[in-house]
């Protein structure tokens, strides 16, 4: 039993991992076909993983409604939101426009989903500003450098800022545009590259750990 429960899955990770890794570098037709097939399979399995999340959401909110837990009324709206998107989708076969006419799904997407998701992200703008005021403390030389880079960028992206810069710094002969370009293509690139390389090394090490079965958290309890 232990074989089926523990060893086989671990063996699968190793086989899958090594095969994917190897096929990337092998230009033979079988290997390319294999990678394509695995991509298709991964799409399908991933779609089921989504189903997992969806079911867990439904179970939790349905449980809230059934037990009349605190705030169960709101849980009903989770289902309402779900059906507002899914029912028109089923009716129009997943298309947002048919023959130049907006379908129910198109309407739902534009006026419900879009309004909600864009607003959720837009609310962050407010928090950025209030946090900038209350927590952006320039207490060290390094924080000052961060502020300076941010300052130049925020100022230079709007015409008013450009004019303000020109009125003070026109003696340098460099508009704020070129300063921003320099910042983005020299020091910022250095910082970003360092981070990317560091992350890449970390990711490779973790992936190797997973393939060789050293990292087993995702398997859950034994």
């Amino acid at each position, binding site marked *: 039993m232990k074989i089926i*429960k523990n060893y086989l*899955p671990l063996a699968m*990770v190793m086989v899958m*991992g090594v095969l*994917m*890794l190897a096929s*990337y570098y092998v230009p033979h037709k079988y290997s390319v076909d294999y990678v394509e097939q695995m991509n298709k*399979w*991964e799409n399908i*399995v*991933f*779609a*089921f*993983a989504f189903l*997992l*999340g969806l079911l*867990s959401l439904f179970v939790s909110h349905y449980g809230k409604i059934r037990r009349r837990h605190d*705030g169960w009324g709101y849980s009903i709206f*989770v289902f309402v*939101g779900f*059906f*507002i*998107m899914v029912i028109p*989708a*089923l009716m129009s076969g997943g298309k947002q426009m048919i023959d130049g006419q907006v379908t129910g799904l198109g309407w739902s997407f534009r006026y*419900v*989903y*879009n309004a*909600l998701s*864009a*607003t959720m*992200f837009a*609310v962050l*703008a407010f928090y*950025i500003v209030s946090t900038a005021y209350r927590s952006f403390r320039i207490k060290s030389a390094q924080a000052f*450098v961060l502020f*300076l*880079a941010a*300052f130049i*960028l*925020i100022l230079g*992206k709007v015409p008013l800022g450009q004019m303000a810069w020109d009125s003070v710094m026109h003696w340098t002969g460099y508009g704020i545009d070129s300063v921003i370009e320099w910042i983005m293509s020299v*020091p*910022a690139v*250095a*910082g970003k*590259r*360092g*981070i*990317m*390389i*560091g*992350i*890449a090394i970390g*990711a*490779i090490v973790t*992936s*190797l750990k997973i393939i060789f079965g050293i990292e087993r958290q*995702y*398997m859950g309890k034994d």
Partner: protein
Amino acid sequence: MTETTWLIAGAWISAGLTIFLFSFLYKDNPFFKIAEHLYLGAGMGWWFQVYLYNIWKPKVFEPLAGGDYFVLIPALLGLSLVTQFIPKISWISRYGFTFMMGYGAGLEIPARLSTDFMSQIAGTIKPFSLMASMSGFDILNALIVAAGTICVLFYFFFSVEHKGSVKKISNIGIYFLMIYFGAAFGNTVMARFSLLYGRFDDLYTSSAASNFYATQLILVAMAAYFLIHSFLGKKDQVEEAH
């Protein structure tokens, strides 16, 4: 209903949902909670139909109906994930997870190696091979990029203690990081403001007469709700005090 009625209804609904979500900035309230839960459901619903029509239907149901049983393998692996909910047989889900993890880990290594590791290093070194055709300023820039990248890497090298010259180099690295974060912050601010502007623009369109002043009426209704709510709240407090 005619098309214009749908458009007006849409304007009201999107203006209403937008204002409900924004109302959280003033104070937590039931309207916000409703909009928040709707967002949860609608988001899941949207992705559900995306997966349904882009993956389940064309790549699973149709091949199966046409006799192509090969797709049963990924389908079963995927279904095994759902057994997570049933404690007795949840070990079956390990097959689904190990497939995904093996695939992901295997793909990650070459992808990271080539895009994030090799090409970044190549990009740093390449300018030096073209030195003959570059101006003095360009050479200086290329040197700064290379030196900066190395300094940042020194900062991340935690297996060696940061003392002496290592500490000095990693301090320089920190400055480069600060410039990058500052630039990223600047860009984020601009992107978020653009998004917010877009929402306000939509609200403004919904406030037109042709939409029966959706934005204004909903704003007034929310303000009225807050006023009445706080008034009733104060009344309760006064009664409790007695």
